[in-house]
């Protein structure tokens, strides 16, 4: 196990190096330059001064070595936009995204897995058809349209829920207020991820239920409830965990459309505005953060396999 983890860590370092080098090259070679230099109203002397301030007058290789030198010390420099420290901005935005996507993920799991189980165990019944129907709607509905629909209904028409932000400006902290701001964006996000879980849970469980060991368990008189909970579901979880491993990094990268419509100050919004503004240090830092999350969640998924299926061992 210990050796396995060391191997994975070495792999992770290599992956991070490759990802950061490629990203650095790609963002630096993209047409245009930092937004603060590229306004219609800027003059050549202004742009030259700013390029010098940002260190863009140096060759690409030097800039990359400087960047990697400070990145190794976990210092991602200052934004090319408002010049704040990149670390500070990321630390501000990351928790917001984690809150939103975490809520959405928990919602998806809490609803999606039971729904998948119901769908699989009562195949071709009304409940199965209902679950399938809503899964297809959920996976097909475009996030921006659904979001606006919810805002029109719950904010404009019914005045039940706030349409944007994380809290009411100026109001003292209150959990109810926070939660009310979370409902709509989390619902939109969960609607997109939930059907994946439902469908995977359903098909995996159906497959397990056809296995010999399930028939044996039933033959020895084990109640259906125990057959499911002790045997079939646990085995059916392996593909579901794989899907989760893919979903988690996607959620941390931020949900661009959802965050934009609901004015949620998260990573997705930041990633888009930094890319449009050619804020190289910010883009690099976001890439590294997301890459780390991908690596870690893949590792967790692999470890979970071993826990779910004792036949899988590491080392």
């Amino acid at each position: 196990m210990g050796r396995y983890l060391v191997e994975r860590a070495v792999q992770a370092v290599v992956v991070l190096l490759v990802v950061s080098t490629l990203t650095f090259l790609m963002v630096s070679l993209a047409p245009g330059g930092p937004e603060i230099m590229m306004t219609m109203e800027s003059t050549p002397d202004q742009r030259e001064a700013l390029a010098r301030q940002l260190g863009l007058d140096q060759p690409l290789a030097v800039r990359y070595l400087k960047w990697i030198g400070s990145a190794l010390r976990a210092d991602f420099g200052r934004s090319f936009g408002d010049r704040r420290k990149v670390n500070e901005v990321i630390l501000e935005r990351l928790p917001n995204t984690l809150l939103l996507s975490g809520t959405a993920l928990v919602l998806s799991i809490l609803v999606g897995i039971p729904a998948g189980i119901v769908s699989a165990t009562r195949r071709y019944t009304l409940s199965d058809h209902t679950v399938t129907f809503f899964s297809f709607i959920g996976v097909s509905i475009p996030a921006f349209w659904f979001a606006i629909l919810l805002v029109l209904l719950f904010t404009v028409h019914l005045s039940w829920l706030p349409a944007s932000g994380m809290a009411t400006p100026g109001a003292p902290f209150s959990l109810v207020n926070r939660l009310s701001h979370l409902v709509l964006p989390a619902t939109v996000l969960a609607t997109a991820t939930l059907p994946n879980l439902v469908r995977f849970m359903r098909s995996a469980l159906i497959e397990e239920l056809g296995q010999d060991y399930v028939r044996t368990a039933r033959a020895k008189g084990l109640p259906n409830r125990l057959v499911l909970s002790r045997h079939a579901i646990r085995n059916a979880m392996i593909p579901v965990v794989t899907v989760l491993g893919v979903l988690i990094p996607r959620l941390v990268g931020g949900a661009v459309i959802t965050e934009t419509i609901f004015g949620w100050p998260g990573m997705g919004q930041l990633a888009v505005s930094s890319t449009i503004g050619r804020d190289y240090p910010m883009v690099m830092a976001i890439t590294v953060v997301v890459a780390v999350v991908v690596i870690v969640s893949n590792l967790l998924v692999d470890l979970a396999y071993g826990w779910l299926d004792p036949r899988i061992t590491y080392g």
Partner: protein
Amino acid sequence: MRVRMFALALVGLLLITGLHGPAAGGPAPAAGIVFPIVGDPTFNPWHPRHFVESIFVTRVLFNGLTKWGKDSRWVGDLAESWEVSADGLTWTFKLRRGVKWHDGRDFTADDVKFTYDIVLNPRLGATGRAAFTNIRETRVVDPYTIQFVMSAPQASIVAVVGVNAGILPRHAFTGVAPENYWTHDAFNKRMPIGTGAYKMKEYVSGAYVTLEKNPAYFGGTPAVDTITFKVLPDVNAQIAQFLAGDLTLLFIDNPALVRAVQGRPNVEVNTLPQNNFYYLAPNHRNALFQDRRVRQAMLHAFDRPAMIRGFLEGFATPASSPLTPVLRNFFNPNVKTYEFDRARARQLLAEAGWQPGADGVLTKGGQRFRFSLAYPTVQYFEPLAALVQQYLRAVGIETVLDGADFNTFVSQRLLPRRFDGLLGWWIMPEDPDFFNYAHSSAAERGFNLPMYNNKEADELMEAGRRATSVAERERIYKRLQELMADDLPYLQLWWPSEIRAWNRRLKGVPPIHLRAAFQWVNEWKLE
């Protein structure tokens, strides 16, 4: 693209659901004025990252030397009066006495000098610097008098010192080296200190900024306790929040969205002319456009009233020259105009030697009339470019569309002047000084994008800057408009209207464009 899909979806939904219920356009926020901004603001008006998301906030936090008055002329703000020497090279501003910074310190001429030293320092690249390059230095005469020493006369300086030119407190930057001014987060991003009607109360990055009234404001204590700027990058979210009553007022950039808010109880939608023109800039160094008759023919080829009706929902006026009626006494209504007239366009092109070829595209000496049109894929430029292409095709001119995202557009097309024709817009200070936009000296490095070079126009623009009396300036700029209407440095398309919507509880907003109206925010009321 995404924005347009959102817009269509929203308008469609509003029409389908017919939300004329009581909640629509409902109660205004109780907490004060709430206005949407599109991104995190920077609280230093000279910061290189001070763009449209910041200007509304800094116009309330800071004051400039002058501001655009409620009766559409320049009036004193931190300056009480000003005069210019006979040679036009020394401007003397008398400053208002008794003005206090938000932290209680006194405002003096030293602060003005400190601010303009930042602007004039070429190494800092302050935003908006281009407007001030004629100022050689500033001199403190006494604590309430400041002088601007010019390297060349510039009569428009009174306007220029009033546009996003907030004065900074020197004492907030003590101990900070000039090269660290832009990373001085304590001021730029957290706790700005201004002289304005409102002062910083609370800022949550990515969410909102709340300012509270400054009871010591020299223009009079504001009537409304707080003003909150909410960060809402998505225009549909802005409209939904406005309809839900969470926003007091907003700008409507896309005329197609007006229908979403119009006709609702409690909502007032109004429009104003602004000093802004949309244009097709022909590259005057390209042989295709050097004959004036070609440029005139192109302008005759557009049915601008129909484009404005169908495309801009009527929220614009066909432009007769780059200078707009907002300039009132400087505006010349009696200039050559170009009605939609394809026959006339073809005739002018024929006079210039262009004859239709086999496929209808004009040719001259074996050359086809074909050019590439650069434009940014923002606002409504994409459909506009397609429309321009169709209108020009109808008179035999072939256009190759060359759209790019804004950043690429600026760096790859606009700055290196790598285009045959270019679609764009200029929002200008309310002054007829058009020097920066069309003088031949601004062709390579300035804002003279079409690289226009006309001796008479150059002389007029220079004379306009030298002139010291209003009557003389009026005469010069009226002549300049005649010349530009005939010679067409830019093919001026239209002057867009500013579209604003606000909750009817909001009163006292002066009838000037909203950016300037924010500088009178202490007079706004919520009933």
